[in-house]
């Protein structure tokens, strides 16, 4: 297995290559405004560092957010195009799950990332591998009771210390963690026919409370978790004609 993971749902542009046993190479850069520019060169460098070519990749995993949309779409568009060109399945993972996995925590905690507009994207976890709520977007103050007393992981936590006084690392998403989580998930669910799912995204893991097969900790379709409806605004320079 050669698994390529990318995530651009947060300010991090992060890429990792995993062979099923360990991470072969990984790279992360934090630049909220240049996802589109930085992702492909990062993929190129990660492949070069591992001495691999893209056409040897057998599995693609992409962080599907939640995250600010413009950056989020870069990773997903890239992964989907790779998948189409290579004929390889593309699976989504919740970006918050990567941060949770990287935290290594084994008790309850919360992951929070910056959703801008004074809001956070967040979810609660029972442990590093087990998400217990659907990802959501809320104002931190509205979460105070829900997350009281819980350690918090992710840059959204450090932004709002009043609500998340027990902020822990990591602050930024890493595709290495995402790739490791994906490799665990793939190893835990061998397919009945022994082959890879043919369609992009493949079937999600069956649901069940807790553990790797919970709906929150499994693969998702490679589609963005926007969580918000689009702002229905025509561009600023659009002048409305109002007859006097």
């Amino acid at each position, binding site marked *: 297995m050669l698994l390529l993971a990318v995530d651009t749902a947060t300010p991090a542009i992060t890429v990792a290559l995993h062979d099923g046993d360990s991470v072969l190479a990984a790279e992360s850069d934090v630049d909220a405004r240049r996802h589109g520019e930085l992702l492909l060169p990062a993929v190129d460098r990660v492949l070069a560092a591992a001495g691999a070519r893209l056409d040897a990749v057998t599995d693609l995993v992409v962080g599907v957010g939640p995250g600010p949309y413009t950056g989020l779409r870069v990773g997903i568009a890239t992964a989907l195009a790779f998948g189409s060109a290579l004929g390889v399945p593309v699976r989504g993972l919740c970006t918050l799950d990567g941060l949770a996995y990287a935290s290594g925590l084994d008790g309850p905690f919360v992951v929070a990332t910056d959703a801008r507009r004074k809001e956070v994207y967040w979810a609660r976890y029972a442990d590093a591998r087990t998400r217990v709520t659907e990802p959501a977007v809320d104002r931190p103050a509205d979460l105070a009771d829900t997350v009281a007393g819980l350690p918090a992981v992710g840059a959204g936590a450090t932004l709002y210390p009043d609500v998340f006084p027990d902020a822990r690392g990591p602050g930024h998403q890493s595709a290495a963690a995402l790739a490791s989580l994906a490799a665990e998930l793939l190893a835990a669910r061998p397919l009945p026919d022994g082959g890879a799912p043919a369609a992009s995204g493949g079937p999600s893991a069956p649901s069940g409370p807790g553990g790797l097969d919970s709906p929150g900790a499994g693969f998702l379709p490679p589609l963005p978790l926007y969580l918000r409806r689009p702002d229905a605004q025509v561009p600023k320079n659009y002048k409305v*004609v109002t007859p006097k």
Partner: protein
Amino acid sequence: MADEPLVLGIETSCDETGVGIVRGTTLLADAVASSVDEHARFGGVVPEVASRAHLEAMVPTIERALATAGVSARDLDGIAVTAGPGLAGALLVGVSAAKAYAYALGKPLYGVNHLASHICVDQLEHGPLPEPTMALLVSGGHSSLLLAPDITADVRPLGATIDDAAGEAFDKIARVLHLGFPGGPVIDRLAREGDPAAIAFPRGLTGPRDAAYDFSFSGLKTSVARWIEAKRSAGEDVPVRDVAASFQEAVVDVLTRKAVRACKDEGVDHLMIGGGVAANSRLRAMAEERCARAGIILRVPRPGLCTDNGAMVAALGAEMVARGRSASAWDLSADSSLPVTDTHVPAHEAVHAAAHAAAHAHSHVHAHAAGEGH
């Protein structure tokens, strides 16, 4: 013909997800997925709605184009993509996908200019472009008069709208008349049954001291809206067909008058008209008539190639390959205000800067005429 470059082009600058495949100047596939219906109730293109639709449609549209053309992605000689101008978030979906496809297939990538693509698409209809070609680009996003001595390297802005794009004016008047979005086709249809001389609407920027090649449709738009409102407040019926015909006549008169004048001034005997408004039947008829009188050969692609599409991007990409232009680098970014003088975005900064400087030395009106984007 088989050794002409086989290029796939991706266009996502506004609300159409377009993927075209060409071999040289031959069109093999032109797949388009439009999100126009999702924007209709807002009376204009909503950027976030467009970006979401692009992401969903991108790969299926690429796969559909490849299937239609009956070619293997492995046989492509290059992948071209609109790098700008356009809506930033929308462009980024196409650029990301194009880079990933090109990288995965080991093909050169060409980030190209949307406006130059609108001109180059005519090669698919009428064969190689004469050099130079004069081009009038009119759509909901742009109204530009461009001189193109070399579509791959030298496009010079002569004039552009100083306020609304021509297509925008059609949309706005259609809205005032409660005719829906987009406004172009319905106004064109109603105008055929109306009298273009019924109401004397103003012709913007046509005075002796006005910029010879610039356009302004804002005053016309306001004038039409006020005329309609005056009728309504007087309790009279609005003669919709006459209003549509007279408004359209004012727009088309200015566009064709300035385009023909530019041809004469620059000694160019070919005029190409592109962009969504080029589908307008009155614009085609008046341009035909005025060009014939001035001894100018008119080239207007069929309507499907005038609106935003992937074939036009592929057409320019194929020309880039044929002329040995530099490919783009993997760090190509979307540039929502890419100047029209940047016909493409080559890899090396040095090359880029030199081409940019040379183009600016020639352009005498608008350094940022293309910046109006969509």
